[in-house]
Structure formats: structure tokens, C-alpha cells
């Protein structure tokens, strides 16, 4: 028997590193914490996500499953070691193809790809899929990753940065991309202040329970630096993204209303964080629980003042729907229910907090730094001026990182102890305690006349908003505005209710309830087209909004591109309908549309951008819009550069950081390209105007940066301004532009009439699939997606949004069902893998919006909306099966096929 008693040494990227004697510690943890290899990302600690993939003697393994002792004597290669020819070519290909979005899975993808490329010079798509299948990505939809790996054999030169004035529309590589492919981007878990305490939360194991603590003062295991409960919360123990509805305690007070709700915090000295908490002195008394929207509406009230557990409701009415449907030639009616959907970003919540004098600093992944600051300050009884939020790179958000999670928890510990504090949620903790997509039970009827024109629609949906409000009011309000789809609906009645239950808190998730409502409307449209005897695409085109139409809220809309999107699909549609299915399978083709208002519903949601020119000739953009992978760091800079007439390459970015960047609002509601982009346009123009004023030049003058000078060319007149001779302002800039933009919207009245959004985006997608009727399995073949983006600021990033949104739509349609207590990990909760996303053809339609910056509209949420209904319509087209409970898991599809055939 050999007992290794010498200090172990690991060979990491060719460097020998002595590590602590902890043979059973996960290799991932040792590499991150002792070997400086923080490019090894940890997404699940269970081998489910592959983010921590490293090479061990040339073979790809999940470092989270390898005992450190096994790595002794092996050659370990992490993303940091991929600096040879293959590795560099691969990174360049990833940047070129937009294969890295948020970047959290990128190290695992790159390492897995290198394992393949070391054996196979020029792999085909199937080889890439198999080699990389162990790594999950939630942003890209995988297709651009496959393309990048297949393209590695070619020598790709980096794309040249666009000239001044040519940034918009250019396929610019993401400006923050290099750090992502090098594995050096700093995410929430990647920065630990020296001596930080490790914070753990005690969470409710019950959906609903009364609890009481034992003798907390005496419970002090070794290394425990303190225990805190709701009694220790110094501020108002209620938070929420919509202040009038704020209802969620950071630590529950005597009653836990959902499984995973935090009730106590424990801080440990570094090295004691694995302490067993099973003897923590808390007793639980389970209470009656309600988990779905029907049970919630019938249960005892969870919150005072919310009778019947109705948090709020939204309503839109136009015309006389009852009469319209009574007089319709055809009416289709159905009820559909959907499930909780988990965001499943690969980066669990993580961050650190410390005191900087009187200021509490929280550095974490986030979609909404200023909202985080305000919520954290209120919870902890601080002036918002004494809280600073530094946003790290964010490894996916999709809506759930809008609400505070660990911010006040680590903030409280830092405040109470004066010591830095850090926390990383486990995958299960992340899934249990953060928000979800609302499950919905919806009933609707839509009627047409004999020619196929929609005459009216009646919609009612209950949305399970879980134990606390979060974004429930937004869902209740957004859905009635959008449930018609982008179609003329002269008589309309839509009611959305947010219902409390003891389920997980439902919040924002890419589309705020609209994807669920679109499933309702678009599947009914297929039945109506059939009843009328029309082609399903033509039926949609007939009813689609045109420029100048008035919506169900009485708003006149312009720049409407839905007809253009449907027309772009037409050749693909006709070709697909003519194809035969492979033997033994049933071929189906489906189509669905979307529209989506960009920005908050009828509320102020301003963004401010500051851009300054330094004396050294560099342009500094204070970019406060969180880039969670969607690309705001790049897009906002592109807009600002062209507005200023300065070259993009001269720009440096700062932020988001509440101490350094003005408030650019939150990354949600598909608002950043439009709202912050508009602010960036205005700020860029203001900077330009300041320079032109100084040069006494006309509006058409060209600006050129030349070292520490700006050269102004106005007709034949050339003026050189030496920047270092000019006085700098308080921010250090010799010229500066700072502008705020807030979308011009109006409140909705009691019938939902008003102007809820200033800009809408449109899209239509078409799905070709085969159904195995014997097994109920669905095989996607290809998806065509036409989206009206107004102006494609960056086509690579726009395509990335489309492909990634479609992947999430596929998950919503076919596999994703979060069941609290049962699917709290990434092997029981399924998100699409490499093999589940078919080839996607993106068609960018540019119908300029009169309000958006350079005509641009939002896109981030639109892209997910049509996918699920198009899939369901294709399944029905193939088999006759009508799915009324999502996701369409094989057993549900199988049952629906049998029902359609009358087998049951």
C-alpha cells in the first residue's frame, strides 16, 4: 500500500504546481483555487454540464468528478493552456462565428474541441456534436459552436475593425470576446477578496412550513464566524423588482412559503465551508401547500391583502368580443397548460461583498446593477449612495438575474462582520431559490369570418407566480397586450392573472408570459386555417398587422415588419410542404409569429449613457447595460461610435458599475439595443456636437483621431485640435456627451387602452420536423427564422440571439419541466443539448422603426416566442396530435397521437 505523504504536485498546462494535501477534493476546485486556473468553470459539480472540462493525459474529463489525487502524475490542460496552434485557431474561429456569447461554457467547449482536434484534423458536424455533447450551452443554440470547430482548419485572420461611421451593420466580433475565449473573463465566482468568509444559506426543505430556531447562540461548529436570521436584518426585510409589490424577505420570518427559501445565513472561515449543517438548530412544521395555479386560487391567502391569492391582473378590451365570436363563421377554442421553466444558465449565482470605508461593495453577476443597489440598500438599511454594485461578466441570465439573490446575503455578512464575504450557489440552490418562467393555464377562443379574417378573440390565463411577487405583475400586464399576436383582431378581450402558490417564485424569463400566450393563439390559428380551408402561412399573412394599423390597445403602429417576415418564409414553406418524410416517420411543417413590445409596459424605464474623449485621444464609453451574453458591450459601442462619427477601435468600455456608470436600466424586456442604444446614439451625437462646436465646424464634418489630436475635416477645411491642451472636466474628459432616453409611452386605462410600448419587433419562424408516431418522439430537421430587427446593428450577434432563443423555445416545447423537489439538477431537468438543435437559417428583416436608434428594434425575447408554437403546429400537421400540456414529452405526444386517432 502506498500512502503519499509528500506535498502533491500537479502538472497544469506544463507548469508544476504544489497543492494542498487533499486527495479527495474535486480537481476543479484545486485547479481554480490553488493553480490559478479560474478558466475552469463550475456549473453543476455533477458532471451534467461539462463547463469544468479539462484534458487529463489528453482525454476530456469533468474536473468536478476527479479526485485531486488522481491528477498527480498526469498532464492537465485547462483553457489557459490552449495557446498552441490548434487552440489559437479555435479561439479565432469562436470569435469569428460568435460561438461564445456569455462565455461561461466556452472553456469547456474549447477544451473538448481540442481533444477532438488532436485526433481529427478536419472533423465533420457529427464528430463535433459527439465530441462536444458533454458540454451544455444555454446561450448559443450550439450551431455556431459546431460551425466554429469545423472551421478551425482554415486560417482565419481577425476581422478588421470598421472605419468611423461604418460600425453599424458590421459583423464586429464581440468586444469582450477575447477574455471569454482565453478563460480570463471574471465571472461571479472568479474574484475572492483575501480572507473572505464563505457564506452558506439554510433553506426550507418544505414548500410551505412554519419554522422555529433552537439555541442559535450555542450552535458554533469549528470555523463558524456567525449565524444570522431575519431578526438581524437591519433594513426593511422585503424586496421585489416592482417596489409597490415588494413582498419577499431576504430571510424568511417564521414561515417559509416555498422550498428553497432562505431562513438563516452561516459564515465560515475559508476551509470550513463543507461543514455538515444537518444539526443546525431549526425545526419545521409543514403547512398545507398549493403548487399549481388552480390550487393556489383555492388555497388560504399567502399574503395579506391579496384575496384569493391573486397578486394582480391585467386586462385589455376592445370592441364586443362576445358578439363577434357569436357571429363568426368559425370558432376554435382550447385550453393549454405549461410548466415551470428554469433559466438554467450555466453560471450559478456567485459573488463577493466587502466594505470600502462606509460603502458596501457587492461584486456579482447581474442583469440589473442599479436595481440590485436599491434593493440591497433597503434590505440592509443603507443609503443607496453607500452601496456599490460591480457587475462581473454574467454567465447567462435570461431574466432570473434581474432579482437580487445573494447580494443582500453576502452584504449582510460583510456589514455585520466587517470582513469580506463570498458565496457561490450550488446548482440545486440556484434552481430551488431563484425565479422561474410562470406556468400558465390558458383558455382562448378565436373566431374568423368565412374568408379567414379574424373577427375576435377571448383569452383568459392564470399564471402561477409562486410564493412572491417578483415580475408577476409584468406577466399579468404584458400578456393581455400581446395575446392577439401580430394580427388584426377587431374585437378582443384578454385577462391575465398572477396567482400565488407555494411553488418557486416566478419572475422574468425571456418573454414575460408572452411565449405561453403565443402557444395558445398560434395553435388556434392552425385550427382556424384548416376550418377555413386556407394555407396556414397565407392565413397568417392575411391577418397580419400592416403599417399604420391600430392595435388592441388602441395604439397606431409604424415600421411593422410581420408581413415581410412571413413573405421571407414563403419559399421555404412551399419547399418543405412538398417534401416526403423518411420511412417510418411522419413529416410536419409548422409556422408561428411573434410581436413583442420593447421596454417596460407603460412605465418609465430610462437609460443614460456617458461617453467622453480623453486628452490621449481615447474614447471612453460608460456602458451600464449588463452584457449577459447578448452583446450590449458591443452593440451599444457600435451605435455610439457611429453617432459620434468616431472609429469603434478607439473605444474603451467601463462598467457596469454603479459607481462609474450612469443608470442604463436593466437587461430585460428586449430594451438595451433600443433604449440604451438610443441613449448611446444621443450621447454619441452630443459628444460629436461638442467637438464640432469647438472646431466651429458644420454637422457634416468628418472626425478623425490622430494620437492626442482630433482632426476635423469640414469640406476642404481641416482643423486639428490638440486634446492635451484642453481642460478636462470632472470625469477627466476634454469633450463629453451624456444623454438620457426614456421611451415615450402612456399608461393603460381600465380597458387596457393606451400606448404601452414605443417600439415593437416582429418575427416568424418555421419548423420542419419528423415524428416517430410509435414512440411519440420528435426529431427537428431545420428551422427558418425571419425577424424584423429594424436595423441589424451587429448581424453576428443578432443571429446568435435568434439561434439561442430558438434553443430555449425548443426546450419549452419539448423537454423542460421544473418540478420543485424532483428536478433540481441538470440531469433530471433537461435543457437542449448539441443534438437537440437542428440547423437554423436566420433571415434578418430590416424595416426601420421611426423611434429606435438608427431604426433598430429589440430582439432578445422575440426570438423565443414563435418556436414552441411552430413546433406544436408541426407536430399536429404531422400526426393530428393536439398537445395541451407542455412540455411535449414523448409520453404526452404519444398519448395525443392516440387520442387524435381515437385509439383511447
Amino acid at each position, binding site marked *: 500500500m*502506498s500512502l503519499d505523504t509528500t506535498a502533491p504536485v500537479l502538472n497544469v498546462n506544463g507548469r508544476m504546481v504544489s497543492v494542498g494535501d487533499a486527495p*479527495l*477534493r474535486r480537481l476543479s476546485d484545486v485547479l481554480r483555487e490553488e493553480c490559478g486556473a479560474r478558466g475552469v468553470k463550475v456549473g453543476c459539480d455533477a458532471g451534467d454540464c461539462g463547463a469544468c472540462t479539462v484534458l487529463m493525459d489528453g482525454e476530456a*474529463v469533468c474536473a468536478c468528478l476527479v479526485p485531486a489525487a488522481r491528477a498527480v502524475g498526469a498532464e492537465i490542460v485547462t483553457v489557459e493552456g490552449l495557446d498552441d496552434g490548434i487552440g489559437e485557431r479555435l479561439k479565432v474561429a469562436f470569435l469569428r462565428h460568435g460561438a461564445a456569447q456569455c462565455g461561461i461554457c466556452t472553456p469547456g467547449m474549447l477544451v*473538448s474541441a481540442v481533444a477532438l482536434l488532436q485526433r481529427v484534423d478536419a472533423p465533420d458536424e457529427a464528430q463535433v456534436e459527439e465530441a462536444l455533447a458533454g458540454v451544455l450551452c444555454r446561450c448559443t443554440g450550439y450551431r455556431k459552436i459546431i460551425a466554429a470547430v469545423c472551421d478551425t482548419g482554415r486560417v482565419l485572420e481577425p476581422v478588421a475593425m470598421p472605419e468611423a461611421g461604418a460600425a453599424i451593420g458590421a459583423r464586429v466580433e464581440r468586444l469582450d470576446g477575447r477574455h471569454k475565449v482565453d478563460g480570463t473573463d471574471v465571472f461571479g465566482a472568479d474574484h475572492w477578496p483575501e480572507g473572505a468568509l464563505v457564506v452558506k444559506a439554510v433553506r426550507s426543505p418544505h414548500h410551505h412550513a412554519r419554522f422555529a430556531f433552537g439555541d442559535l447562540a450555542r450552535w458554533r461548529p469549528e470555523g463558524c464566524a456567525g449565524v444570522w436570521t431575519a431578526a438581524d436584518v437591519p433594513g426593511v426585510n422585503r424586496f421585489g423588482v416592482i417596489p409597490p409589490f415588494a413582498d419577499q424577505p431576504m430571510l424568511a420570518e417564521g414561515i417559509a412559503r416555498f422550498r428553497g427559501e432562505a431562513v438563516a445565513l452561516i459564515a465560515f472561515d475559508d476551509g470550513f465551508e463543507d461543514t455538515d449543517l444537518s444539526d443546525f438548530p431549526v425545526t419545521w412544521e409543514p403547512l398545507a401547500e398549493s403548487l399549481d395555479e388552480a390550487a393556489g386560487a383555492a388555497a388560504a391567502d399567502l399574503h395579506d391583502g391579496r384575496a384569493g391569492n391573486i397578486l394582480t391582473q391585467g386586462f385589455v378590451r376592445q370592441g364586443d368580443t362576445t358578439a363577434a365570436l357569436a357571429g363568426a363563421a368559425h370558432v376554435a377554442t382550447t385550453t393549454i397548460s405549461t410548466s415551470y421553466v428554469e433559466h438554467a444558465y450555466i453560471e450559478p449565482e456567485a459573488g463577493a461583498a466587502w466594505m470600502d470605508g462606509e460603502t458596501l461593495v457587492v461584486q456579482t453577476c447581474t442583469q440589473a446593477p442599479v436595481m440590485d443597489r436599491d434593493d440591497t440598500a433597503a434590505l440592509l438599511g443603507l443609503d443607496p449612495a453607500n452601496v456599490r454594485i460591480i457587475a462581473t461578466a454574467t454567465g447567462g441570465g435570461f431574466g432570473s438575474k434581474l432579482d437580487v439573490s445573494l447580494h443582500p446575503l453576502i452584504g449582510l455578512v460583510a456589514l455585520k462582520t466587517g470582513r469580506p464575504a463570498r458565496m457561490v450557489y450550488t446548482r440545486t440552490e440556484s434552481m430551488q431559490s431563484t425565479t422561474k418562467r410562470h406556468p400558465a393555464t390558458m383558455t382562448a377562443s378565436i373566431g374568423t369570418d368565412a374568408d379567414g379574417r379574424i373577427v375576435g378573440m377571448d383569452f383568459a390565463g392564470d399564471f402561477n407566480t409562486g410564493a412572491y411577487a417578483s415580475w408577476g405583475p409584468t406577466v399579468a400586464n404584458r400578456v393581455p397586450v400581446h395575446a392577439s399576436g401580430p394580427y388584426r383582431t377587431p374585437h378582443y378581450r384578454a385577462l391575465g392573472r398572477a396567482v400565488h402558490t407555494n411553488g418557486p417564485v416566478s419572475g422574468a424569463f425571456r418573454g414575460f408570459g408572452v411565449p405561453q400566450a403565443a402557444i395558445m393563439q398560434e395553435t388556434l390559428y392552425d385550427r382556424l386555417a384548416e376550418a377555413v380551408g386556407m394555407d396556414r402561412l397565407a392565413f397568417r399573412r392575411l391577418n397580419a398587422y400592416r403599417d399604420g394599423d391600430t392595435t388592441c390597445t388602441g395604439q397606431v403602429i409604424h415600421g411593422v415588419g410581420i408581413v415581410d417576415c412571413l413573405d421571407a418564409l414563403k419559399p421555404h414553406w412551399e419547399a418543405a410542404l412538398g417534401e416526403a418524410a423518411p420511412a417510418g416517420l411522419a413529416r410536419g411543417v409548422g409556422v408561428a409569429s411573434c410581436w413583442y413590445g420593447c421596454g417596460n409596459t407603460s412605465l418609465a424605464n430610462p437609460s443614460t449613457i456617458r461617453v467622453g474623449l480623453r486628452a490621449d485621444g481615447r474614447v471612453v464609453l460608460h456602458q451600464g447595460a449588463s452584457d449577459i451574453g447578448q452583446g450590449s458591450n458591443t452593440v451599444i459601442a457600435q451605435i455610439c461610435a457611429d453617432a459620434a462619427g468616431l472609429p469603434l477601435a478607439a473605444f474603451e468600455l467601463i462598467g457596469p458599475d454603479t459607481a462609474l456608470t450612469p443608470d442604463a436600466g436593466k437587461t430585460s424586456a428586449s430594451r438595451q439595443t433600443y433604449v440604451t442604444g438610443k441613449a448611446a446614439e444621443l450621447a454619441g451625437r452630443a459628444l460629436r456636437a461638442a467637438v464640432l462646436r469647438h472646431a466651429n465646424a458644420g454637422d457634416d464634418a468628418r472626425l478623425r483621431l490622430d494620437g492626442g489630436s482630433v482632426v476635423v475635416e469640414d469640406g476642404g477645411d481641416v482643423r486639428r485640435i490638440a486634446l492635451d491642451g484642453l481642460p478636462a472636466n470632472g470625469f477627466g474628459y476634454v469633450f463629453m456627451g451624456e444623454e438620457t432616453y426614456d421611451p415615450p409611452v402612456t399608461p393603460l386605462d381600465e380597458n387596457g387602452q393606451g400606448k404601452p410600448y414605443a417600439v415593437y419587433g416582429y418575427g416568424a419562424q418555421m419548423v420542419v420536423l419528423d415524428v416517430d408516431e410509435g414512440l411519440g418522439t420528435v426529431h427537428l430537421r431545420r428551422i427558418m427564422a425571419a425577424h424584423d430587427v429594424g436595423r441589424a446593428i451587429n448581424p453576428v450577434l443578432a443571429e446568435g440571439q435568434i439561434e439561442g432563443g430558438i434553443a430555449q423555445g425548443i426546450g419549452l416545447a419539448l423537454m423542460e419541466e421544473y*418540478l420543485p423537489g424532483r428536478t433540481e439538477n441538470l440531469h433530471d431537468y433537461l435543457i437542449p443539448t448539441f443534438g437537440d438543435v437542428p440547423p437554423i437559417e436566420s433571415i434578418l428583416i430590416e424595416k426601420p422603426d421611426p423611434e429606435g436608434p438608427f431604426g433598430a428594434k429589440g430582439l432578445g425575447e422575440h426570438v423565443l416566442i414563435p418556436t414552441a408554437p411552430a413546433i406544436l403546429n408541426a407536430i399536429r400537421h404531422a400526426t393530428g396530435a393536439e398537445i395541451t400540456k407542455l412540455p411535449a*414529452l*414523448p409520453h404526452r405526444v404519444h*398519448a395525443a397521437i392516440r387520442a387524435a386517432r381515437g385509439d383511447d
Partner: protein
Amino acid sequence: MTSEYFRPTDLDDAMALLAETPCTVLAGGTDLYPATKAQSLAGPVLDLDGIDGLRGIAREADRWRIGARATWTDVLRADLPAAFDGLKLAAREVGAVQIQNAGTLAGNLCNASPAADGVPPLLTLDASVELVSARGARVLSLAEFLIGPRRTALETGEIVSAILVPAASGAGRGDFRKLGARQHLVISIVMIAGRFVMEEGRITFARVAVGSCSATARRLTELEDALIGMAEAPSCSLVAKHVAETLDPIDDVRGSAGYRIDAAVGMVSRMLAETFA
């Protein structure tokens, strides 16, 4: 702590240790690490990694020996006859390459999940399990070894040292199909394995096994008997009769019991149809 971690190089030393000290036995780690939220496995742990005698896949006089340390990747790279094709197909569907490079077949058996990918193909190979302890060695059939969900016949101080496949099982061609709700990294709703020997268009030997449809994977022995002598695929109703008599699935998050029965019938029927094609 080092004293909690043992990495012997000799099997006898390992058995002596295990007789003295109850240990968690670590093979590939792909089940043990996911089961803890901690950054370290709790000791004491006996790591089999150092024992060369447990590595690899060897052809012995009358059998194949799949060592306890043999990974799914080892199976994929081994030169094995077509009878093992089902096992190789299963190996390609265990997680993805990261899991295949670390996870072992023996560990898959010891974890004893009703959805263990290795069990149906090993059943069709008439595989048995070699167990060793300080008391000596014994060999159990798979059915004797797997006694229920998450339960095996392993006794205190005992480890699986190898999976044994008799030489006679090298005959014919193996097959495996896994049904899940996504393409990769998926726990099966139903999986099936088969091994068939055909002579002059007729089946002379058949093994059919189904996983994820009962507490442990099961062979459809009556169907196997009925297939002997057949020159064309049996009717779905015959398959359905044997499936219904043998399997006892449950409803869970992945699928309903009734669906599992229907899917198993469909999958087995198709496998048989393609075997005759």
C-alpha cells in the same frame, strides 16, 4: 486528510484494508461526486485506481474479463466481436465523452440504478459479476447481483473485481437502443438490448433485455424462447404479451408506466424487424 484516503496498488492489500476499515469504494467517481454538495468526498475512501490488476478488458481462455477499472471508453476502444455491439452502443450513450472517459461498467452496476445503461446489454451477454473480499472470491449472475433499485448483493468488505462474459456469448450480433427526451446526456425512459444468432435466416439464439421498466433491468426470456426458429419478425402482439408479462414500470418525471410499456413493445418490435431485414 490523507489518512482518509487509501490508494493501494495491490488487490490483496485493498481487501485487507477493507476487512479492517469500512470504506467508500471509488472507481470512476461519476456517481460518488454528484452525490455530494461538498468539494471533497467524505472518507474513508478506497481508490481502486492504483490497482493495475483491475484495469482493462482481457480475453481469457473461456471468457472476457472486464476489469473493475475498465471505463466506457475502454469498451469503445476494445477489439470485441459483434456480440458486444450492444454494449458499445450503450457505452456511446452513457453521458458524453467526459463521463465515458471516467465512468466504469463495474461502477454502473454497483450504483444499481434501474436506468443503468450497462445492464441490458450485459444481460444479453449473459455476463456475471466477480466479487472479491478478504474472504475470497465469488461469482454471481447479474440477476443475483442486482437485487433492487440502488441495492446489490455486495457484502461488507467486498468489491466488484470484474465483469465476466463467457466465450459463448461472443456469438451473434448485439444491439442497443435508448429512448430519452433529449439526444445526449439523458437518463433513459426505456432502453432495450438484444443479441441474436442467425443461421440461414432463422434465429437460433436470442437475448432481449429491457431497462428502466422495472426495479432492475430484465430479460424477456419467454420472448427469447419464442423467437427460436423464427424466420421473420414476430407480431407486435406477441412482443406486447411478453413485455406486459415481464415488465413492471412506474410513472415518473420521464414518462408514464403505460407509455413505457408501449414504447418497449415498439422498440423491441423494431429491433427484431431490423434484425430480420
